[in-house]
């Protein structure tokens, strides 16, 4: 295995560990409403978005989903299917958004698009398979809270990647 491949694996492992740590904090925060999640465990994905190869990013998204399912105790329940659908949708949208240059769309924009895709897909799946039309009543506050929290998280991530010496050393921009 080349040195570069080992470094890349270590980075993915490190970021996945960071996601696990954040998922633990997220789990410890009491939820006033079901569904509601701050999404702070997405921070490592946002940081790596324009900096890791696609394959490594997908591994990171997959590990984060599993870790979160494991921590919240939902890994073997249908809730994991909801989370997975949302996670896959947000991962795909964020990767696509990150193809645009950083000067056009910052991580705040990527984060917002990812959260919106994740929440919309989760609502659609929950509505289709479980709750029927009732999800429309839940949708506006759920989407609005997700918009606020994801924008703030993306704003923080953008500031972090711009200022962090660790990021510029270990995770340089892809192009």
């Amino acid at each position: 295995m080349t040195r570069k491949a080992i470094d890349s694996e270590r980075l993915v492992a490190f970021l996945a560990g960071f996601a696990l740590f954040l998922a633990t904090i997220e789990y410890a925060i009491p939820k006033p409403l079901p569904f509601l999640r701050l999404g702070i465990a997405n921070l490592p994905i946002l940081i790596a978005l324009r900096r890791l190869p696609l394959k490594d990013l997908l591994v990171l998204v997959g590990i984060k989903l599993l870790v979160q399912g494991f921590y919240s105790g939902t890994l073997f329940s249908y809730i994991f299917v909801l989370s997975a659908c949302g996670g896959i949708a947000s991962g795909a949208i964020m990767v696509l958004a990150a193809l645009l240059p950083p000067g056009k769309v910052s991580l705040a924009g990527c984060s917002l698009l990812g959260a919106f895709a994740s929440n919309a897909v989760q609502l659609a799946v929950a509505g289709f398979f479980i709750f029927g039309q009732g999800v429309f009543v839940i949708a506006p506050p759920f989407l609005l809270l997700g918009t606020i929290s994801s924008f703030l998280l993306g704003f923080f991530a953008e500031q972090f990647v711009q200022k962090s010496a660790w990021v510029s050393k270990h995770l340089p921009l892809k192009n």
Partner: protein
Amino acid sequence: MKKKKPVITFFDGIILASVLIIIGTLAFFVYARGYTGTLNVRVRSDSGEWTGSLYEDKTLVLDGPMGKTVVQIQNGAVRIIESSCPDKTCVKTGAVSDVHGWICCLPNRVLVVVEGGGAQGYDSESY
């Protein structure tokens, strides 16, 4: 001097505005419809769907994947008083009595919604 890169870009603003417009439009269609003054409770669970008046006291015992969920309608308010789910967020939500109020138990697949009843109610139309 090196020009500082903006944290938020113009396109971020467009994305934010678009998302807020979508949510606002959705909220308008969901919440802005009138009702005649009487309120109903719609309960959806693995036991099926039940709709009844918010003003008739009733207790429903519902089955879900985690076990039982008990929904109580009393004094013009609805609440989940007992649930087999692990975190009990639904029980902590407390009583709901306003139109569009809702209680959700995701683990046990129960959704309780207060909605407008009466002749102009929007029952099975889109809401």
